[in-house]
């Protein structure tokens, strides 16, 4: 199982090195991977359909409680089959669609990566590994969306998609960690079985929020939906695979998976129904205004995803059953429609409905596929779409109080979607063929067969829903969290549901007849873009950038003194707080050494030279007063019994002065001084800081201290280290390492000075 899940990565890895062999004819060979996987998963279908579940565990990071645990139940198997099945078709389709493309190998690598990630998402029982694969789908989709990477539009869409789904991913991470925190386990099954009630946890709200954002971003729910239409810049196989059949359903998958765990509460269902409802309506409206085939499909996908969210949110047995089936239904017809659109684009050179028509003449098989998919979408019997739509109406009608509202929403959405489906699946093939399309060729078999297969499958399943009944039941069980007894049928007899379906059909077809997609109509809608979430989020992004720029240029403004000011202010604040709040202020005068007159005078001289250095305009005078200060310190060292220090301080001071003198030789006079205000401000800060230092020092001096180290040195310097000047013994023996490093510092400094002075400026930082 692990190999099955990871095979896509292996494929991608192999492609990175052997890619050049797979750019031509051999590329079709790659399709064997998804096909084999599909067959592999198919073998479990009967088992699963019987209501069994399978668990595959592989150790990975046990210390973090993160392992590869793959859980195969109805839901995950459904998705696995979709992923590998549609994957197979997409692989095959791609081989033809992108024949001889320069980077075909990369494309397959990304597809493989994506497929593997997606399998990981749907199979993982461990929420963290689920997140990991989830994130990998975002990444691989980033590469896929941005595949035409030299187009700015394409890059922008890829980034946009990554931003939205990446953001969602992080929420999922949070959710995963939080769930783990609440239930002390990362395994979804264990969570379900542990009986710990997440609903009653105070963190429930946060978990929901996190899960919702994760799912909504991935599944393009309002207000995060806009990345999906944007992602249509990707090559059609990508749109088909990611943006209709699989990746966008990851959010749905997540909600479905979590439904038994988190569902049932008003917070869960209301939120999902509201957002799902808004999304399905909003996107459906948008769909019929588009002229670009793929845009239509994209919006209708968003809308369909809204329906799914809505259904899951409703959380009734019927709605979940509807969801279970609709996932499959939608995948089949939408993938088909996308592939159809891709082929049209490939052969006719445009996807613009304005310019399309009459293509049935040259692309007959494709027209059939389009028609079948469109009617499945429309929910016209005997397609599986009809079964799905029925279930949706049943579900909405099944709710008690607000039934009419839900049903109305579903109805309108379905009408719009029907029209949109016809626009995409039927319109290009009907009517007269525009002159521009006269030289359209027939599509190669690999480009019409996959959509046709999908469409036919939709038809077949509609005719024999029993074929998948057991399976759907298994899916339904997963969603319910208990065993399902659902029954699928094409024909339920004449009832309200059927009536609704008929109304849908009638109004939808009428709408299709009325609509004439055109640029002008599109423009009308786009006027409202100002209020669209995309625009608002873009605005937020711009505001964020502005904010980032403002903050950054405020902080990193280039003025060193400002930086230092900030740092010292920060330090002073911290010290002040600690001193005022915590230090027991008292002065024990007896512990303070009494200063003699000469020390006071030395201090006064130091003080004077400091002031002099501060206020003088002559640099040299400042240096000289620095020298004076050094010598005063040296005298202090003499008075306070530190001859070695005095010597060293003196020698160093002189050398420093010499260095200054040698260097200053070149520098100009002091430049403009800061304004008085700034000087006062700086002075205030400096003095405050100095004051706090003084207070701290006095307090530290009050503390008793037991210096065993010094006592040990006094005792043993001669006995053990054979030296009488204890300071020097410390330097060369007790703490000799310090001295060794110290001379190394000097050595490095010399190297630096030498280099700094001798090197010539060169502009190229890499190579001279």
């Amino acid at each position, binding site marked *: 199982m692990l190999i099955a899940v990871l095979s896509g990565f292996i494929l991608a890895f192999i492609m990175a090195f052997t890619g050049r062999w797979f750019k031509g004819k051999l590329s079709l060979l790659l399709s064997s991977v998804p096909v084999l996987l599909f067959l592999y998963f198919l073998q479990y279908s009967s088992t699963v359909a019987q209501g069994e579940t399978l668990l595959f565990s592989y150790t990975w990071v046990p210390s973090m409680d993160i392992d590869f645990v793959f859980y195969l139940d109805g839901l995950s198997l459904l998705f696995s089959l979709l992923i590998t099945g549609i994957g197979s078709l997409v692989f095959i389709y791609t081989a033809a669609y992108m024949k001889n493309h320069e980077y075909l190998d990369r494309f397959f690598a990304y597809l493989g990566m994506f497929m593997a990630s997606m399998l990981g998402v749907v199979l993982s029982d461990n929420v963290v590994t689920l997140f990991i694969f989830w994130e990998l789908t975002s990444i691989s989709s980033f590469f896929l969306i941005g595949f035409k990477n030299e187009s700015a539009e394409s890059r922008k869409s890829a980034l946009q998609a990554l931003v939205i789904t990446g953001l969602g991913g992080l929420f999922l991470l949070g959710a995963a960690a939080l769930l783990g925190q609440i239930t002390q386990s990362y395994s979804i099954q264990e969570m379900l079985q542990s009986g710990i009630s997440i609903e009653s946890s105070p963190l429930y709200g946060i978990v929901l929020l996190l899960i919702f954002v994760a799912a909504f971003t991935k599944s393009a729910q309002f207000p995060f939906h806009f990345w999906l239409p944007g992602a249509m810049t990707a090559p059609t196989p990508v749109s088909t695979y990611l943006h209709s059949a699989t990746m966008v359903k990851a959010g749905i998958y997540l909600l479905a998976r979590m439904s038994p765990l988190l569902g049932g509460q008003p917070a869960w269902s209301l939120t999902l129904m509201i957002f799902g409802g808004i999304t399905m309506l909003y996107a459906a409206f948008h769909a019929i205004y588009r002229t670009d085939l793929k845009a239509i499909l994209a919006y209708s996908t968003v809308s369909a995803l809204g329906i799914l969210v809505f259904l899951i949110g409703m959380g009734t047995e019927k709605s979940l059953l509807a969801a279970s089936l609709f996932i499959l239904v939608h995948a089949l017809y939408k993938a088909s429609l996308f592939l159809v659109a891709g082929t049209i684009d490939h052969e006719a050179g445009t996807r613009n409905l304005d310019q399309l028509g009459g293509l049935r003449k040259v692309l007959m098989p494709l027209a059939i596929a389009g028609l079948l998919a469109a009617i499945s979408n429309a929910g016209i019997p005997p397609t599986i779409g009809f079964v799905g739509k029925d279930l949706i109406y049943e579900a909405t009608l099944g709710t008690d109080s607000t039934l009419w509202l839900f049903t109305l929403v579903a109805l309108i959405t379905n009408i719009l979607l029907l029209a949109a489906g016809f626009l995409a699946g039927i319109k290009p093939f009907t009517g007269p063929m525009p002159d521009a399309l006269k030289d359209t060729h027939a599509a190669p078999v690999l480009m019409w067969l996959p959509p046709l297969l999908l469409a036919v499958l939709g038809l077949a399943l509609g005719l024999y829903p029993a074929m998948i009944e057991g399976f759907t039941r298994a899916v339904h069980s997963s969603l319910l969290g208990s065993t399902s007894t659902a029954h699928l049928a094409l024909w339920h007899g004449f009832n309200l549901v059927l009536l609704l379906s008929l109304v849908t059909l009638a109004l939808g077809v009428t709408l299709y007849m009325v609509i004439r997609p055109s640029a002008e109509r599109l423009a009308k809608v786009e006027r409202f873009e100002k209020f669209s979430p995309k625009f608002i989020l873009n605005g937020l992004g711009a505001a964020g950038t502005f904010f980032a720029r403002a903050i950054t240029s405020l902080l990193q403004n280039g003025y060193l003194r400002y930086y230092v000011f900030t740092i010292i202010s920060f330090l002073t604040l911290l010290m002040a707080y600690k001193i005022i709040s915590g230090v027991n202020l008292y002065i024990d005068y007896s512990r303070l050494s009494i200063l003699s*007159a*000469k020390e006071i*005078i*030395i201090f*006064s*001289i130091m003080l*004077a*030279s400091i002031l*002099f250095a501060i206020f003088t305009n*002559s640099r*040299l*005078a400042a240096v*000289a*007063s620095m*020298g*004076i200060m050094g*010598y005063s310190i*040296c*005298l202090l060292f*003499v*008075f306070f019994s530190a*001859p070695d220090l*005095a*010597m060293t301080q*003196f*020698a160093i001071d*002189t050398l420093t*002065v*010499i260095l200054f*003198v*040698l260097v*200053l*030789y070149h520098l*100009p*006079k002091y430049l403009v001084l800061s304004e008085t205000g700034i000087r006062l401000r700086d002075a205030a800060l400096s003095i405050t800081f100095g004051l706090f230092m003084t207070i701290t020092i006095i307090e530290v001096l009050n503390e008793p201290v037991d210096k065993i180290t010094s006592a040990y040195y006094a005792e043993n310097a001669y006995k053990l280290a054979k030296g009488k000047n204890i300071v020097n013994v410390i330097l060369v023996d007790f703490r000799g390492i310090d001295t060794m490093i110290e001379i190394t510092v000097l050595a490095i400094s010399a190297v630096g000075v030498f280099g700094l002075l001798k090197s010539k400026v060169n502009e190229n930082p890499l190579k001279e």
Partner: protein
Amino acid sequence: MTLQDYLYYFILPVLTLSVILLFIRFVKGPSISDRVVSLDLHITTGIGIISIYSIINDQPTFLDIAMILALIAFLGTIAFSYYIEKKEKNE
């Protein structure tokens, strides 16, 4: 009054007073050369202070510092002269 007291209460104060006077010149300038001269005398006077201090504390060790002081102060003066002479006048 012991020798130490005498040194402590008379000699040292006078020497420090001299240091103050030297410092006045340092502050007054007016030219950099005046300051350098003052600096040099500071150090030389420092040598005197240190040797008095070594008597007071009975610590001949301090004379070593005086030795270093003498050696190096000279170099500082030379460096300053070097600088003063080399510096361009228009600066």
